[in-house]
């Protein structure tokens, strides 16, 4: 195109004058052992073309067979996204020519997706919830991987060419398509990001994919259009392809809002097209213009019979769905009794799993939060690391807190123990011993006196066990007398209660 692009409109101005509408297509590679339609193994990082069969190479006469586990994973995803699961659905051929698609068609689903009509509530960082309607989730296969070899480095007479690896060709994918996401206003970029992030979290707990963004396990295409008001019909959209990090999703939306606003301000029309996203500066540039060449001549795949998941199977899968991330966050929020803001900080800091594991290791939620959001957050920041990457485990924090609770160390010394653990000196107990950090206290003689006093007054023990702590003073008095008042009464009380509780 020879027309000059108008300057971008500042984001804030753009969303004051226009209402952004987003639509997101997310592809997730399923973590099955084998491919969608053939039993070639699939794993990340294998040598080129070492994971192929005649089916994934598209050799003549090769016949596909559906991977049953991939169908189950697709149903799991559909159910987690509150979708209907089709009583019957079929595969279709999407015909196009590209070197990474060896059959000259992608086996996909067209008019009959396996899952449809769902929704997902997405939570923004400040706790605002935005509902995203899911139009469909369908099964398909991934393409191979092209590596473009530039002219300057090219060895074939300096010409530019491409190298193709078919290991990824045929890897099972589920594509999840939203309905137009309206009503997000200026927060559209955040909603887009939070949606993709929520999907990633769901894929992980469903155990259907490793869902590693940096490996391209999860890839997003971001559609965006602007309209003058929320009441106006939808504007012309662009589709920014392969936006592969959460931050990029947010930036791609922002950029397109600013760019399209400038075009509309100039009285021109947005061109419906696919666009490429550029990580370096967060911009997008035109790819193919949607045209006649995009007629994929879909037709039902004759080599595969329909998939008709029985209702019994669907319900069986539904019954085994794990607790989903949002429900889990709500449950833990209740269990831990954190304030809303505290809980959000915990989630945003990526400390939810760590605190849950620390609580499981014996710490109270409040103590676990204090460690991870306080001292450890400070150290992570110093080292510019994630909390989870610190060289200390939740089990070790649990142990550390127990040492504090048992009075063997205090909070101040606990920080020194932390230093030792982080320096690789072993578990907290070992660090306390090797660094000689234990508070000197000898409960031995006290315990002897306590056991004697308890044995002498079994009736008091009974009452205290029965829930009446009043008479415990009689025991404490006896112990203080036996130790001629040299014991710490507070400590005696603790030990007496511990002993009685058994």
């Amino acid at each position, binding site marked *: 195109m020879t027309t000059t692009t108008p300057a971008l409109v500042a984001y804030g101005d753009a969303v004051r004058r226009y209402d952004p509408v987003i639509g997101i297509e997310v592809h997730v590679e399923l973590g099955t052992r*084998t491919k969608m339609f053939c039993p070639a193994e699939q794993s990340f990082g294998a040598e080129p073309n*070492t994971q192929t069969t005649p089916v994934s190479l598209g050799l003549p006469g090769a016949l596909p*067979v559906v991977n*049953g586990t991939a169908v189950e994973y697709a149903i799991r995803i559909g159910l987690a996204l509150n979708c209907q699961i089709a009583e019957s659905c079929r595969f279709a051929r999407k015909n196009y020519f590209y070197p990474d698609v060896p059959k000259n068609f992608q086996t996909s689903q067209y008019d009959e997706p396996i899952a449809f009509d769902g929704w997902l509530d997405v939570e923004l960082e400040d706790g605002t919830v935005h509902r995203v309607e899911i139009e469909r989730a369908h099964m398909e296969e991934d393409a191979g991987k092209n590596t473009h070899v530039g002219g300057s480095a090219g060895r074939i007479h300096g010409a530019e*060419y*491409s*190298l193709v690896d078919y290991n990824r060709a045929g890897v099972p994918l589920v594509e999840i398509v939203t309905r137009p996401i309206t009503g997000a206003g200026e927060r559209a970029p955040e909603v887009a990001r939070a949606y993709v992030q929520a999907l990633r979290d769901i894929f992980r707990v469903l155990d259907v994919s490793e869902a590693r963004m940096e490996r391209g396990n999860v890839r997003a295409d971001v559609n965006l259009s602007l309209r003058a008001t929320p009441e106006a019909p939808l504007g012309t959209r662009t589709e920014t392809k392969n936006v592969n990090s959460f931050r990029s999703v947010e930036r791609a939306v922002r950029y397109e809002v600013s760019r399209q606003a400038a075009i509309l301000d100039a009285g021109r029309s947005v061109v419906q097209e696919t666009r490429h996203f550029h990580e370096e500066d967060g911009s997008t540039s035109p790819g193919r213009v949607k045209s006649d060449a995009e007629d994929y001549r879909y037709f039902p795949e004759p080599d595969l019979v329909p998939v008709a998941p029985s209702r019994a199977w669907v319900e069986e899968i539904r019954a085994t769905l794990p607790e989903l991330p949002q429900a889990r966050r709500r449950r833990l929020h209740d269990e831990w009794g954190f304030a809303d803001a505290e809980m959000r900080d915990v989630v945003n800091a990526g400390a939810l799993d760590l605190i849950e594991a620390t609580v499981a290791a014996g710490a109270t939620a409040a103590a676990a939060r204090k460690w991870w959001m306080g001292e450890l957050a400070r150290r992570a920041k110093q080292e510019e690391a994630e909390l989870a990457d610190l060289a200390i485990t939740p089990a070790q924090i649990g142990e550390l807190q127990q040492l504090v609770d048992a009075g063997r160390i205090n909070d101040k010394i606990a920080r020194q123990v932390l230093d030792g653990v982080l320096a690789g000196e072993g578990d907290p107990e070992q660090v306390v011993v090797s660094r000689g950090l234990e508070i000197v206290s000898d409960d031995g003689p006290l315990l002897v006196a306590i056991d004697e006093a308890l044995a002498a007054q079994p009736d008091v023990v009974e009452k205290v066990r029965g829930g009446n702590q009043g008479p415990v003073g009689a025991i404490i008095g006896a112990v203080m007398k036996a130790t001629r008042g040299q014991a710490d009464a507070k400590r005696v009380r603790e030990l007496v209660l511990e002993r009685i509780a058994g």
Partner: protein
Amino acid sequence: MSTISRDEVARVAALARIDLRPEEVDRLAGELDVIVESIARVSEVATPDVPATSHPLPMTNVFREDVPVPALPVADVLASAPDAQDGRFAVPQILGEE
């Protein structure tokens, strides 16, 4: 009455990367017309209670266990490649991308 036009044949041929001469387009338009008309006659005998069918076999849910088999040896994979480099198929530059 002709239902398949010359233009349609030319368009589908272009989409399918089939290079047809003008006289071939004419001939195929006629032949495809006969095929389409013949198939359309099925709807004359199909009663409304016969649903549209894409798969004639009364089979569904033909699944495979998710168990890997050994892959083809790379040498075999690349044996039919017009050109190869570093274990990969070498193909002409892909036009219109990036």
